[in-house]
């Protein structure tokens, strides 16, 4: 089971696939909530990269990659809360959560 010369490459490829999936989801779907879900997937793939480089890189006792991942998780949680609050507020104004129907600045 040694398809990759280095295990880090495997994790990086998984993160690249997840990022591409998130990007595709953010671009092809019409519902704002799925777009937020896709953005969360992209943030998660970045976290996977951070942790993988921390695990296989030098100076792992400095904990830099792990701290970056922890703060990134916290910021992503704040982003999710504000984003979903905005979606609910927009739904209350326009009665839809579909992005191609929200085309007026003056609600």
């Amino acid at each position, binding site marked *: *089971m040694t398809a990759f010369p280095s295990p880090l490459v495997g994790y990086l490829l998984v993160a690249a696939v997840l990022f591409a999936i998130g990007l595709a989801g953010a671009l092809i779907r019409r519902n704002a909530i799925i777009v937020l879900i896709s953005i969360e997937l992209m943030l998660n793939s970045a976290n996977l990269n951070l942790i993988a480089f921390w695990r296989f890189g030098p100076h792992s006792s400095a904990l830099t990659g792990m701290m970056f991942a*922890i703060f990134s998780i916290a910021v992503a949680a704040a982003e999710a809360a*504000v984003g979903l609050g905005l979606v609910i507020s927009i739904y209350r104004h326009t009665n839809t959560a579909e992005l191609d129907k929200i085309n007026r600045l003056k609600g």
Partner: protein
Amino acid sequence: MNAVFYLLAAITIAGGLAAILLKHLIHAALAVTVAFGGIALLFLQLDAQFVGFAQILVYIGAVAILIVFAILLTHGADLPEKGVFNKGWAAALVIAAAVFAVTGWAVLQSIDAVPQRNAAPVVSMHDVGNALVGRYVLPLEIVGLLLTAATIGAVIVAMHEKERSR
């Protein structure tokens, strides 16, 4: 590289794909929860226990619940009549495939350059706590302030505004 890694990677990617392809929003929320869980297990595979359990707590525990609440509050369980994909989906797929091609090519080109250390790092919870309140205390305080502001902001944004909407 072992069988566990391949299994977890397959679960995570399948969850992500299902999340963006399933028609019903509730199904998509469940699928993305599976993807979050797969990423948490990948973190545990990478010997980052604290981040793995933080991922489970924050994403599976909080973000997934938040997404389900938002879906139910916006009547997202009803299917739209015009389909779930927008008009430019073909161009979007091309863009995503191009991004994946470039990142994958860059990763495969740098096989010889990436660090290869196989010994697992020895990190205890004690070290994580010391780093959080020692070297990283200012980012920790800023994140606390950000979370407070974001929570209050989300409540204010989503609150009923009766007297202002005329």
